[in-house]
């Protein structure tokens, strides 16, 4: 029988599409009880995060830029929280410029940080290594 590479190509493409759609259609159960409104507001806040290109320097779940700290749990970190975030955004730091966000934008950004904080922890110290080499979170 003659070898037909195109059949293998179609097979892998089909597998890719099935896998992709399974990810689109079945969101994870780890959203820790976020309500529909909280999720909608968080999505608006993420648009603000993108508008001011925060990802250029900051990470969420250790994914993003490298010049500033990870912001996944900045909302609940000791000594931080809403007022701290507001002050940092508005006055800037040695490295970060001061941003002129409207009240609506800053509130949306806070909703995003609040929601992403609820989904889990990006602190790598709160992970353990399984015997098979995989890592699992110990929770917040």
């Amino acid at each position, binding site marked *: 029988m003659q070898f037909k590479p195109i059949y293998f190509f179609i097979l892998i493409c089909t597998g890719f599409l099935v896998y992709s759609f399974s990810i689109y259609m079945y969101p994870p*159960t780890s959203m820790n009880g976020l309500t529909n409104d909280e*999720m909608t507001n968080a999505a608006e806040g993420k648009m603000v995060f993108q*508008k001011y290109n925060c990802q250029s320097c900051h990470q969420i779940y250790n994914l993003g830029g490298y010049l500033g700290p990870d912001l996944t749990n900045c909302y609940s970190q000791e000594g931080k929280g809403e007022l701290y975030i507001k002050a940092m955004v508005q006055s800037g730091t040695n*490295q970060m410029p001061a941003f002129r966000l409207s009240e609506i934008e800053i509130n949306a950004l806070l909703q995003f940080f609040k929601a992403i904080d609820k989904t889990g922890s990006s602190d790598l*110290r709160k992970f353990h290594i399984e015997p098979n080499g995989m890592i699992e979170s110990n929770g917040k």
Partner: protein
Amino acid sequence: MENKQTNFAKLFFSTAMVVLFGAIIYGIWAAISYIYPGFLKTQLGFIALRPMHASAALFWILLGATAAVYEGLNYLFPNQINQKIAWTQWALWVIAIVGIFTSYFLGQFGGREYWEFNPYWALPIALAWLLFMFQFFSLIRKKRNWPVYMYMWMTGIIFFLFTFAEGYLWLFPYFRKELITDLTIQWKVNGSMVGSWNQILYGSSFYLMDRITGNEKVGQSKLAFAMYFLGFFNLCFNWGHHVYTLPTEPYIRYFGYVVSMTEWIIFIKIIYDWKADWQQATIHLYNIPYRFIMAANAWVFLNLFLALFMSIPAINLYTHGTHVTVAHSMGTTIGINTMIIFAMAFFAYEKNNPRDLKEKIWLRRFFWTMQISLLVFWLSLISAGIQKGFWQLEANKNAFGDMMLNLKPWFILFFISGITLGISISGVLFQLLKAQFAKPIKTSN
């Protein structure tokens, strides 16, 4: 009368080279912020410079890959490239590039990491790629028994368009609202998209080796197809290492882990073929495109080794979110992608303009400066990353700013090697531009 055809490989190569020069300038400028925090932060700071550098580097690879495919198509289907489609494709790219960089200068963002521009600028890129795909399929359907590199080009072209579109699913509230799924898709896209342009460039490398060695049987062998399918399988499913720490469903992380381990097969094959490759290299080492391909192969070996370790979750715990990841992306984009594009560009230009000896001496100097600088650059990023990785896991870690201060010696090394790397790449670009504008030498036959 001779039909005057535009050489689209050269057109796209020259456009890509202009963009690459921009990537070098913005990259060096952005890196200053690591040494002098807040450098020009209110004028043109890191927030604008990072996307400028990243987008320029991405466009260099995409335009270079496009040029490489046009070089192949022009050889396989002489004088059959649809001029109107190719010119429109090029014009759409130019519109997108001008628009994107103007918006970055004006401080207008709104997109995602690596694609930070406002999503409406994605439209000309998608249209240009759609035209490229149409051009490609209208030509390749005329040929039967495709060699493996044609499959690789096809895979890369289709999957780039798919992943590029997938990368904008967040425009729909359904996807944007699900924070974790949204992040998962974002990194699924980034992983697979890199695989798509790698397919185009590895395919081009295969095509080039066929042309240089004159051995066209390799491209039809079952082993070549087996390796292609392994690479394709990894393109589709080997992105899980980006999301090991995300609270996704466990099956996504475990599947990514298992798939990534299949890359050991590629790694072992490189070691197994090493002796034969070396013997082949000694025959063709005088050949400039071949030399760039050999450099790319060496960088594949180093970066694959790094990637394999980063794909083991227990090790990924230490490297995730650190400069080891940057070392890997820089090592692959410069060491592998850029070397292959240079090889293809020299191959395209050398056919009409053989260089004189003096130029070759300079080219040799730039080539080796580039390799050594890149090695130092790569190692300094890995070292900074390892140090940061240990900091991330310290029980009583100090402040982020203090940690960054401790990494400064590595950043200085990264900056200096970045400058020498930039100079040597510019030197190679200059040699290519000279060849672009040199008068073709007429052969008498």
